[in-house]
């Protein structure tokens, strides 16, 4: 749950993106890379304009934890691995790789790759990139992800060997996640101090100009290693904070692409000529509500269960999201088979039942009902609406909730430290691996255990999930973990939702992966996108 930095203005769903069981490849030498996707009727030329809502606080993929930074940076930089449209892990800068044993991975690099500033790309650059993130002075938000690394060796210009401290199932997922593991050039970092305003990568687009609060202009990399790509001459992220203004720009045709988490987007764009809406293909971004379990009443499982059965998830999805969402745990439905399929089946205390909630309260000695608080931030209107509906539903079960609206920075701090009275709810984001979804926020030894609960069984499942490399066994572990978490109701996940994309009809060749994060994880798709003129 490495989120919480610069949250987009309305919901961070946009930074969530999908990962499905890509770990199947583990233990096998990867097949040689398929030939680059050749032009399939794509036309060269044109600049695609994306309307972004928040200005990125710098573009250095190793320094900024903000989604708005990497949704631009991922077009500039490449990684060792990437995900294809089916979410399988395939090679990017690595042509092939081999898992030598549990803790040793060898990557063979593509030859002939050139940095945007003209120098040849080589194995030493990969080693440097990870060492930069591990260096305390970089203060990289991804540092803790890579502390598993024992050493990285570059025996020759096109070979990199990773030696890790112990078996670590999420490794390849992480290497295929643009913001976690972008490969950066040492000479450019050293020249400018960091890559917040300057950039040079090996990706399909090169940074031409970045003016904070205004625009980021990228142009085509003519030496990109997939011949013929990208089709576009350029890609521009125009920063337009106001949603009504973004939609107006799309109508007027000055913007080609945007996304929105507003479930009323279809009405807002009704009658807009030349605009097509794409529903999210899966729901990846969850809301999470935590209980303060350092003191009664939420130390009692029966009280937490009463809240869980007291809320009506389906009704929330129907009203707040107008149906554009699904029942979820922390591992969302779009992460099937790790995630549950989007309904309540197999998850205890997920089906709404006010009478049962009252009974549970009675058993816990709270027959007269319960008064408690729920913190939310007005920064996220959807979260506030969700809380309002939950308040009504819980009132029917005898749980009287007082909503407390708290400024986002303050709420986030309270939330991670469990410094709130009763309950607190924030939007959560999708993570590139089931382990990343749950380990830090569920583990009893973690400082950011949400709600400060301790459960030996949870800890054991978390460790198993992290070190088990067999995919089927791993799926079973995470499904058991989610069932157990629902049974104990340590945390409440009311739903998972997604964002709708809107495109001008002139945009061709754009594909989004199931449940993909609009605006982000779109590198694959923008490089194959073209404009019909």
């Amino acid at each position: 749950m490495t989120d919480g930095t610069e949250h987009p203005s309305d919901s961070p769903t946009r930074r969530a993106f999908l990962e499905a069981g890509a770990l199947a490849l583990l233990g096998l030498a990867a097949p040689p890379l398929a030939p680059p996707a050749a032009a399939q009727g794509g036309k060269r030329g044109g600049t695609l304009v994306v309307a972004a809502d928040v200005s990125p606080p710098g573009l250095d993929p190793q320094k900024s934890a903000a989604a708005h930074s990497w949704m631009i940076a991922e077009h500039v930089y490449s990684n060792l691995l990437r995900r294809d449209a089916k979410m399988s892990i395939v090679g990017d800068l690595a042509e092939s790789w081999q898992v030598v044993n549990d803790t040793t991975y060898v990557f063979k690099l593509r030859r002939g790759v050139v940095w945007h500033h003209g120098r040849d790309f080589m194995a030493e650059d990969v080693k440097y990139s990870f060492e930069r993130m591990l260096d305390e002075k970089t203060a990289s938000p991804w540092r803790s992800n890579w502390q598993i690394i024992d050493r990285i060796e570059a025996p020759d210009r096109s070979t990199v060997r990773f030696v890790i401290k112990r078996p670590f199932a999420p490794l390849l997922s992480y290497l295929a996640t643009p913001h976690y593991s972008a490969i950066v050039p040492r000479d450019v970092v050293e020249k400018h101090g960091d890559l917040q305003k300057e950039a040079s990568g090996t990706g399909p687009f090169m940074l031409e100009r970045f003016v904070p609060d205004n625009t980021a202009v990228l142009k085509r990399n003519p030496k990109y290693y997939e011949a013929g790509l990208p089709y576009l001459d350029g890609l521009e992220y125009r920063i337009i904070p106001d949603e009504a203004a973004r939609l107006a720009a799309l109508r007027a045709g000055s913007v080609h692409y945007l996304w929105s988490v507003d479930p009323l987007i279809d009405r807002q764009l009704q009658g807009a000529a030349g605009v097509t809406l794409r529903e999210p293909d899966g729901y990846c971004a969850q809301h999470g509500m935590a209980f303060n379990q350092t003191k009664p009443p939420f130390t009692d499982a029966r009280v937490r269960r009463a809240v869980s059965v007291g809320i009506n998830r389906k009704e929330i999805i129907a009203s707040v999201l107008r149906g554009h969402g699904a029942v979820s745990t922390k591992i969302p439905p779009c992460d099937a088979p790790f995630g549950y399929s989007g309904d309540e089946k197999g998850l205890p205390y997920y089906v709404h039942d006010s009478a049962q909630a009252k009974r549970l309260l009675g058993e816990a000695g709270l027959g007269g009902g319960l008064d408690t608080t729920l913190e939310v931030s007005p920064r996220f209107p959807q979260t506030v609406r969700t809380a309002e509906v939950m308040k009504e539903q819980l009132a029917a079960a005898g749980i009287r909730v007082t909503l407390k609206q708290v400024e986002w920075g303050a709420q986030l701090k309270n939330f991670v430290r469990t410094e709130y009275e009763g309950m607190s709810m924030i939007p959560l984001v999708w993570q590139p691996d089931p382990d990343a979804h749950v380990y830090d926020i569920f583990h009893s030894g973690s400082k950011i255990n949400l709600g400060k609960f301790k459960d030996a069984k949870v800890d054991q499942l978390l460790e198993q999930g992290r070190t088990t490399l067999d995919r089927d066994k791993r799926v079973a572990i995470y499904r058991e973990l989610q069932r157990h978490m629902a049974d104990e109701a340590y945390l409440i996940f009311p739903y998972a939702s997604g964002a709708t994309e809107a495109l001008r009809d002139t945009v061709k060749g754009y594909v989004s992966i199931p449940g993909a994060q609009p605006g982000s994880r779109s590198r694959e798709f923008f490089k194959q996108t073209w404009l019909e003129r």
Partner: protein
Amino acid sequence: MATYVGKRLLLLIPTLLGVSVVAFLLIHLIPGDLVTILLGITAGQNDQTRQALIHALHLDRPLAVQYLLWLGDVLRGDLGHSLVSGFSVRDELARSYPVTLQLALMAMTIALAVGIPLGIVAATRAGRTLDASTRVFSLLFISAPAFFIGTVVIIAGARYAPWLPTLGHVPFSESPGRSVLHMLPAAASLGLAISAIIARFTRGSMLDVLGQDFVRTARAKGVADAVVVYKHTLRNALIPVVAMAGTQFVYLIGGAVIIEEVFALPGMGRLVVNAIYQRDYTMIQGAVLLLTSAAVLVNLAVDLLYHVIDRRILYA
């Protein structure tokens, strides 16, 4: 006069210091944790990563020391770097402030160019149809917030005149013509709201003066109506209008956050609000310093303007 200006400028120094101390303390009083905001929930709680960042940002030093470190750098001409992005604060201010100044000047020009003539017309035709229509205009623009008018302009523009640039910003240095054109809808949305207030003010002030003895005397002497209105009345009526417009202008140069958001203008308003959300202390300090200086200087300019309008007003 010169001593007066000199005194006012000297007064700037304690004002700025005082404001910067208050701003520095206030932002530290707001709950919330910069490190968590910066690093995200997971990394933000990793002890080593956290400590490294806190140390790098001097956040482990006492508040007074942090303030003095900052002040020392400022005196050497260095406003420091953003705690969030690492951008140079001076560069960021130099980028955003021209946008805000341009917007303020354009909006004020529109406000005065529309508001004063409307006020005069309304005053000279008090109680007649033209007066009533300017009253409707004024009430409309005083009641409807500028961001509402702005949103209507943008949506209507997209639908009926999609070729019209309504969004975004072209720096003045890049192309003055396109820059002014791009900013016109935003400046008009802001300016018309202020023009409505100026029109009401001008009308009231004009009517006051028109009722005074010297005006009647002038009329009795047979002075032409236009001379009575524009020479004798207007000049006397303008002083409260200038005072009020000056106050409005001070607000404008502080950055019009909402209009900047609606029209996607990269000005000071957005810079400051984002800095506050992100607890970007150095950026807030730099911005407060700049905005306070600008406000004090504009106030001084307005005071001096009184003398230009009415030579009887002198400064000691």
